[in-house]
């Protein structure tokens, strides 16, 4: 036995009460279980003969009573865009931040970024607001402001120590995401960008459920060129289709690398199967552009600086601007209004 798991700390609490927010089951869920929290719990075809059937059927159901509250809270948000990828480390947060920064270069546009990566929040570091905390007022939680027109919300702001691990199971993560949407005073935003963790699990399902009513504009999907990554991204696109989320487009990140010494172009993550462009064609979704691998992007993220301000003439910056313009056009805005030419 492991004594450390039994100590009365929140993390151990999670371990001891794994399935707190679903009905107390008498047997493990069968393979085709619709989910004890789901609407069909206890009534689906696969529930016949399950020892849990009665318990599941008796559990409270129906739409979440908080949904109208979320919709009211987000009434002033014009466009809600998810940034998704099945694969980790492809640059979801980087793309989210760069999109946010790009939108925010226009002083007439207000942008919000919501970081739903509970176990590995990167947004605050990348936007240079890592040491912020959340202020609570009667109107709700105030987000941190990275710029005058760029609001940020992340679990990082709630941690007593920067390196604290957030050891949470799904239901608890869902609870926090709901609070981010329901309790945060987002105000009037032109864009709310939602950064997500890799995969297709609790966070993604919750964001989708909670935002469905107030309307999701669509999802930007990020990938890297190699097949190992496309494999997971294909699953994510499948998820979007199943969940009814419109795919606004695919961004290929880390595409080509230009050696700073000899300017030789090499494919570090070689697109053996055609990369993002081929995948976009195969899945019939728009291809928004390819962003080259520039070490300076990573560097400016590490220091929380704006890549747009620091290296406005780099090819990566131009590629990003192209993505932003294309994206703006796809959600029915005039690209010139969103990102005016210099």
């Amino acid at each position, binding site marked *: 036995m*492991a*004594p*450390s*798991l039994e100590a009365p*700390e929140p*993390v151990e609490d999670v*371990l001891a009460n*794994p*399935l707190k927010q679903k009905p107390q089951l008498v047997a493990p*869920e069968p393979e085709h279980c619709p*989910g*004890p929290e789901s609407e069909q719990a206890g009534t689906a075809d696969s529930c016949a003969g399950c020892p849990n059937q009665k318990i599941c059927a008796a559990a409270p159901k129906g739409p979440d009573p908080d949904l109208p509250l979320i919709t009211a809270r987000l009434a002033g948000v014009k466009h809600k865009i998810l940034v998704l990828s*099945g*694969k*980790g*480390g*492809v640059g979801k947060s980087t793309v989210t931040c760069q999109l946010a920064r790009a939108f925010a270069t226009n002083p007439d546009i207000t942008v919000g970024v919501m970081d739903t990566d509970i*176990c*590995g929040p*990167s947004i605050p*570091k990348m936007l240079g607001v890592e040491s912020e905390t959340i202020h609570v007022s009667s109107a709700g939680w105030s987000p941190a402001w990275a710029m005058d027109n760029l609001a940020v919300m992340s679990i990082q702001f709630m941690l007593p120590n920067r*390196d604290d*691990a957030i*050891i*949470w*199971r*799904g*239901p608890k*993560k869902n609870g926090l995401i709901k609070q981010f949407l329901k309790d945060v005073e987002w105000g009037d935003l032109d864009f709310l960008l939602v950064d997500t*963790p*890799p*995969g*297709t*699990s609790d966070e993604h399902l919750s964001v989708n459920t909670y935002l469905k009513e107030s309307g999701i504009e669509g999802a930007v999907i990020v990938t890297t060129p*190699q*097949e*190992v*990554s496309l494999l*997971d991204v294909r*699953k994510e696109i*499948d*998820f979007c289709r199943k*969940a009814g989320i419109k795919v606004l487009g695919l961004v290929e990140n880390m595409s080509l*690398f230009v*050696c*700073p*010494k*000899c300017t*030789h172009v*090499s494919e*570090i*993550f*070689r697109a*053996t*199967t055609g990369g993002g462009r081929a995948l976009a064609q195969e899945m019939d979704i728009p291809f928004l552009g390819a962003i080259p691998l520039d*070490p300076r992007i*990573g*560097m400016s*993220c*590490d220091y929380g600086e704006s890549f747009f301000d620091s290296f406005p003439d780099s090819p990566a910056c131009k590629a990003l601007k192209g993505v932003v313009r294309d994206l703006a056009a796809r959600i029915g805005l005039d690209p010139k209004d969103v990102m005016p030419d210099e």
Partner: protein
Amino acid sequence: MSLAKIKHIVLVLSGKGGVGKSSVTTQLALSLSLAGHSVGILDIDLTGPSIPRMFAIEDAKVTQAPGGWLPTTVHEADPLNGIGSLRIMSLGFLLPGRGDAVVWRGPKKTAMVRQFLSDVFWDELDYLLIDTPPGTSDEHISLAETLLQKARPDQFAGAVVVTTPQAVATADVRKELNFCSKTGIRVLGVVENMSGYVCPNCSECTNIFSSGGGEVMANDFNVRFLGRIPIDPQFLVLIETGRRPQYPEGTVINGQDISTPAHAAGSQGEVTDPAPLVQKYRDCSLAPLFGAITADVISVVGQAN
């Protein structure tokens, strides 16, 4: 418990996604196998299993046996060449189509992890490597819980933590190290992956994701630093197409000339090299680096017992 015949269980963890957990797992497994150990890989990245792709066995299906599943064999033991067997179990094998999303909430993932740990019939194994998804959530909690309760203390060796050098990645991996200390998982060491990229044209090494961040983090947390692994596009090509790694003349790693001999270089572009992956991996520039890391891991695991 199907883990009974396994000598050592090693987790491969990282708080951050895409830092190379699966490729480190793959290479650790290949190196251990080259060192003559029998190895198993359990892939519990339920929503994005990459291990089947790494070993080019995406079409493999799991064989059902009474009361459980049989892992897929990548290669059998070859005592003549001192190579140990390598077997794999991944959720990818259970999926109907390779593009299908697995949309599972926590409880279902928890149940699956438990089942994976208890219902796979591993034969006698020297090492079982468990490849994990990024984060510190359902899969990790269930894994820690199940292993700490059910595996023998001498069996559950600990975790190899993978990071990339940039601060954005180490920030997340620091959380993972705290997870390990809170749950009582021993950290065997930290591997810094994607540390530098050597331009194939001018051999200039660029630190794409900066360098040294993993070592600083290991020192901060007082855990062993196992080494730096550069990006080698030849390894990616080997994984994606099965082509034997080839290097221009004069490529020297750790004082060892690994450039491709002239007579073999004629087979450029030939992808149907029938040799098993483990043989081809020997020619990869990363193999000696991983050999050293593997030796380190083996000795640390040995110290525990």
